[in-house]
């Protein structure tokens, strides 16, 4: 199968250099060829009753983590906010 690596990279928010294209195409095609051997199964997907997830109540919990601590890991901050490139002119 031909895979449009550029399109998939765009959906994945990745930039693939021209020099890397052929390599990715070959590897992805090999993997897809392997997975295409999976059998067709006429069945429906159901939720596993043994593994039903319980959601937490939607209430704000107590935390000792401060805003300043969290922002320490942000690459760029101004006035207590993370900074992103301009999106609207």
């Amino acid at each position: 199968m031909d895979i449009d690596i550029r399109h998939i990279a765009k959906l994945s928010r990745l930039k693939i250099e021209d020099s890397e294209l052929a390599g990715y195409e070959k590897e992805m095609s090999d993997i897809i060829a392997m997975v295409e051997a999976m059998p067709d199964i006429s069945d429906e997907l159901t939720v596993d009753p043994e593994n039903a997830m319980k959601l937490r109540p939607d209430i704000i919990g107590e935390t000792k983590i401060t805003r300043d601590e969290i922002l320490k890991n942000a690459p760029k901050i101004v006035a207590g906010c993370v900074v992103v490139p301009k999106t609207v002119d």
Partner: protein
Amino acid sequence: MKLYEYSACELSEMLRAKKISSRELTESVLDRAGEVDKKVNAYLRTDREMSLRMADRADKLIASGEAKSRLAGIPVGIKDNISTKGIATTCASRMLENYVPVFNATVIEKLESAGCVISGKLNLDEFAMGSSTENSYFVTTKNPYDLSCVPGGSSGGSAAAVACGEAVVALGSDTGGSIRQPASLCGVVGLKPTYGSVSRYGLVAFASSLDQIGPFGCTVKDVALLQDEIQGHDKMDATSADRKYASLLDNLNDNISGLKIGIPSEYFGEGIKPEVADAVMKSVKELEKRGAKVVPVSLPSTGYALSAYYIIACAEASSNLARFDGVKYGYHAQNCDGLIDMYEKTRSEGFGREVKRRIMLGTFVLSSGYFDAYYKKAKLLQKRIQQEFADAFNSVDAIITPTSPSEAFKIGERTSDPLAMYAADICTVTVNIAGLPGVSVPCGYSEIGLPYGMQIIGRKFDEQTILNLAYAHENAFGGFRRPEL
């Protein structure tokens, strides 16, 4: 005998009898790391001052009689995809090179409450994606039995550190074999617990429906000791199982008389090195001599499991890793032309090749027009594999297979062929797909001394039976042998 050479259970008794201090033990372990890690590269970072501070705290707890846990004072190595507050957690990726979590994973909270010492953060394949630790952005870990070979992966640092005595026990994570396969290649014991039995809160997510944190040790008892400490329900993980967890160590029993062991022929044929299959069957014979009954079982969909695994795991990874965008934390590319360019540059420069390929594969199988052909098919196959295991467990108590189809392979041998690398997980991925517990134990050595591993798979939440079998095997077979470095 130096302190790092004792098992965690022996050290626990020595600490509580006040024959040794945690500071002495921690110094011994860190000195050992200082001596051998130049060769092995198991650790990404250690912090002697921090570890000794934790050791002093443990010594005070033990002296005052406040130490409740048998793990108090024991140094534990931590895979570097488990969040440690104030200690960099990089996932062996450039993307998180400078990331310092502001919170602890639940397992770390538990270890700290128990009075454990963190000996350092251990190497892995980037974001736990790989089977050799060669995908680490920082360094390739070496196999301590042969430095020209890989230690397995993705928890290669954890397995190698325990084998060398650079950590008494260690934590890893297992999405498709990432605890059991490196345990096998490094000749130690590694347990992948039942999905839901150990909280994943604070484990950097790769494939959330398959990921599970678990313990490494030199002995079965050490693995039971560490698993006792980390298992249990956690409200911070919605998939955590709310049930009673009995002590595995207290109930460890090597009387396996009457236990039925299933042998699936699908795990002993094509793709499995005959020497590995022979070593495993020799071990099974030992268990038979001790009273276990051997029964053939069939798991017919095994041959498709690797395909289903890579589709499900990559689909989840493509979604989980979307959070790395260069805005809130992590790597941030420079000189970008707008928001989209910033995302693309950040992710392309921050992620390594294997991670990018898996993100793209996941994006592809989830994309419009391909979802039914790949993702839905894989999920239906997962359901069938789960059913086949359930049927097998109607007639047996445990299933035994090789852990890895071969002993450790050479560094660089498989890096350019993803399918050859993926084949390393052929015996382990089914266990994650089915959400079962599995333990790898050393079961022999190749002609040049590389370890072979045997995998024992159990029913959901029946870690006890597989550890009992592992313990009986260890007592009959001799278990772990420290590599010479």
